[in-house]
């Protein structure tokens, strides 16, 4: 399977887990998927990163479009981003990506005895 397909599977699973379980369940789920599907180790971090990044940015974007408010620009001042909402989306994606990437990598690595 290509990296892209793996990522799409992860995005779908991440969304389901996110809706019903605590925030960290996404990482554990990605690790499990990587383990069960025996993901290639080399690309595992990137695959996971991509999935986490895309999932968190798209979900945040969707929420922001559903409920337009001043909250993102306020949060972009709570975190020192000078009110830049674009930077807030990127930060959201990077945090989601980093977290997902590491767990996917961990799952894939555990499978490689």
């Amino acid at each position, binding site marked *: 399977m290509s990296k892209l397909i793996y990522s799409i599977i992860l995005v779908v699973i991440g969304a389901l887990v996110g809706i019903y379980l605590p925030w960290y369940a996404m990482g554990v789920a990605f690790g499990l998927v990587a383990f069960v599907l025996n993901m290639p180790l080399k690309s595992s971090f990137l695959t996971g990163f991509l999935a986490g990044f895309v999932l968190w940015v798209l979900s945040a974007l969707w929420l922001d479009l559903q409920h337009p408010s001043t*909250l993102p620009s306020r949060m972009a001042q709570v975190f020192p981003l000078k009110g830049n909402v674009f930077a807030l989306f990127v930060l959201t994606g990077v945090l989601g990506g980093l977290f997902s990437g590491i767990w996917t990598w*961990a799952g894939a690595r555990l499978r490689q005895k």
Partner: protein
Amino acid sequence: MKIIKSAFPLVIALFLTYAMNQSWGTLPPLGKLFSPFHGFWMNAESPESGEPTEETLQIAGLHQPVQVVYDEMGVPHVFAQDDHDLFLAQGYLTAKDRLWQMEFQTHFAGGRISEIVGEKGIASDQFQRRMGSVYGAEKSYEGMKEDPMAKNALEAYSAGVNAYINSLSDRELPLEYKLLNYRPEPWTPIKSALFLKNMSFVLASGTDDLKMTNILRKYGREVAEDLFPNYPFQESPIIPVGSPVDFKPVPIPAGPADFTGLGSSMTTPEKDPNIGSNNWAVAGNKTVSGLPILANDPHLTLSLPSIWYQMQLVAPGVNVYGSTMPGTPNVIIGFNKNVAWGVTNVGSDVLDWYQVKFKDASKQEYWHDGKWKKTTMRIETFKIKGKKEMVDTIFFTHHGPVVYLSHEKPFRSNIPVGHALRWIAHEKSQELTTFYQLNRAKNYEDYQKALTFYSAPAQNFVFASNEGDIALWVNGKFPLKSKQQGKYLLDGTDAAADWQGFIPQAHNPHVKNPVRGFVSSANQFSTDPSYPYYLGWQYAPSERGRRINERLAVMEKITMDSLRGLQNDNYNIRARELLPLLFAQVKSPTSAQSKAIAALKSWNLVNSPESVGATIFENWVLTLQSCLWDDEFAADEKAPMNRPSMDRTIQLIKSEPSARWWDDIKTKSKESMSDIVMKSLQANVDTLVKQHGPQGPEWAWYKHKQTGVRHLIPGMDALSRLNIPIGGGGTIVNAATTKTGPSWRLVVELSKEGKPRAYGVYPGGQSGNPGSSHYDDLIDTWAKGELKPLLYLESADQKSNRLRKKITLSK
């Protein structure tokens, strides 16, 4: 080995998960907070639009369904079938919009901030508890429980708040819980009591006794009394001079022997002196409609979420609209079909300090009235985030808690060490009964009866009814004192220095339907010196009260809009009086000084937002006070003193041009009044140039004053509104200062038909959620000096194009 290698990334992943689930200092838990399924992204709320929406919510504990309709400001109008359901719904709906604020404020009041913020909250927490905040709340709750109505109200309100808390999943928590990483705990009636007691902290905890004693020790009684008189040079008291007295005074206790206390010691910040308020009611013979109009604007620290929350509460026997305080049942300031009422603070002296003589280091006994008496102890336990619990013992004499022992460093510089605190806030009280009855009052008699239950913080309760009555009671529980008792620190061993009971409530200063056709208050002296009892020696400066009274005296054909205008009056009567006196002293100014003087001479004496004259004048007052008094009264950091008031300074300029105080004792030469005025002018211009550059539009009053409405978390600018273009000032009717100001403006016109019309606004919004359009949507209206029409509904089905949302609360 291999296993360790393959498990290594897992360890990193687990560690990262842990790290992103935790707060690190002030850094929130990043994973939890940024996850769009759990964190702050979930807190965005879109503004309502178009068609009104309807929904039904299940709330445990209701007797009958409750109808709630929200208007376009986000004000809930609540229709319940009995009092129990009304208060339960009030608790639920208030929590829905303001839960974090309610809990945070009561945590603060109860000295529990360190549970949320860790070690840095300890000093504040300890101060709160040593001042007896929890002790006072417990006593107050005891008093409230004696009235079954109040007990039921508090319990139903708690049940409502808890119904909301229990309905919340982690991802639905208000934003601040996510930022500070904690969860709400169950609400209890004692928290409502803590909130009410905290109002005494906000409004009746000012204390200058220590500073006055420091002055007494340095300059002696004659100077202290001359510079800090017991009645101002200029005043327009709340109860008009010459009002008839309708009671026979009880005997005044003999005063304690003269006592010069030990005075003190340290340096730390103190309370903001700018908290004050305005209210008035005008009689029908001065209004266009022929019925009374009432106006109120209590001044408090401006905060987000706002201290006020508007509601309309309807049940059999009550239909009241007004501002509530999140954390406590009933409407606090508002109106119903027949009456309207409002409050401003009374600056009476209800807090005194007694120098304690302990027998020995164990502090088990203290000397009083010629005997050793036993102290009692109260143990307070502090849970501190990230640290072990701390236990603190508070010693009580019969006066009250010994707030700081002689060797301790006080949290504020005006708090004496080694003294016991006697404070009205420690008394059993029944404020809830007052508000319950005011909400249902039909006439003057109901209002008068409601006030008999009220203790603290003492308030000027202004009143108007559709029977045509206007009235004002300076109301609260006032200790029966000898003249000036408690102006200075008191001798804790002298029984004659104890409070000797209380002034009978019926003897509190009051006025009904005065011939002048209006009643008003702006925190100034309650009465002129002919009032038989001593209430205190120091009240808010008289300017706001004098301005309001001079305007109301000449205003005729009054409308709600003309009173709205008076609430926003920016005229500076202090400048009107002081500037000619200062101009006469100006000698050979520099060119920058001449330019400033020219701006003042062409100034219209209005503290409008863009005014440069206002900036120069207000700053001059500060530099003048500092140049005149600081050499004598701010020289010793270890013995903080009061500075004589501006009122006393004006008197000095007018009638004591050669007083010894004009000389700057820090210089070898001898300064005259003119020298000090010039020195202060120089300091004034220099500081303004330094802050804003050469004189010009950058000196605009609002830019200099920097009024802001700040989030309750200190330093959380992103959730605050700063640099708001508004005029006014501390001694201006429109009392907007840097951090304080009119926290709720209300104007109500009563009607014979029971259809009152009202307008109001507060600097915030109904929602406490920074992600809601109702978070701060009223601030611009407030800053412009405009009001919103308040929707007073007769029934839940009443049609109005202002309704946006309907909720049915069902059991």
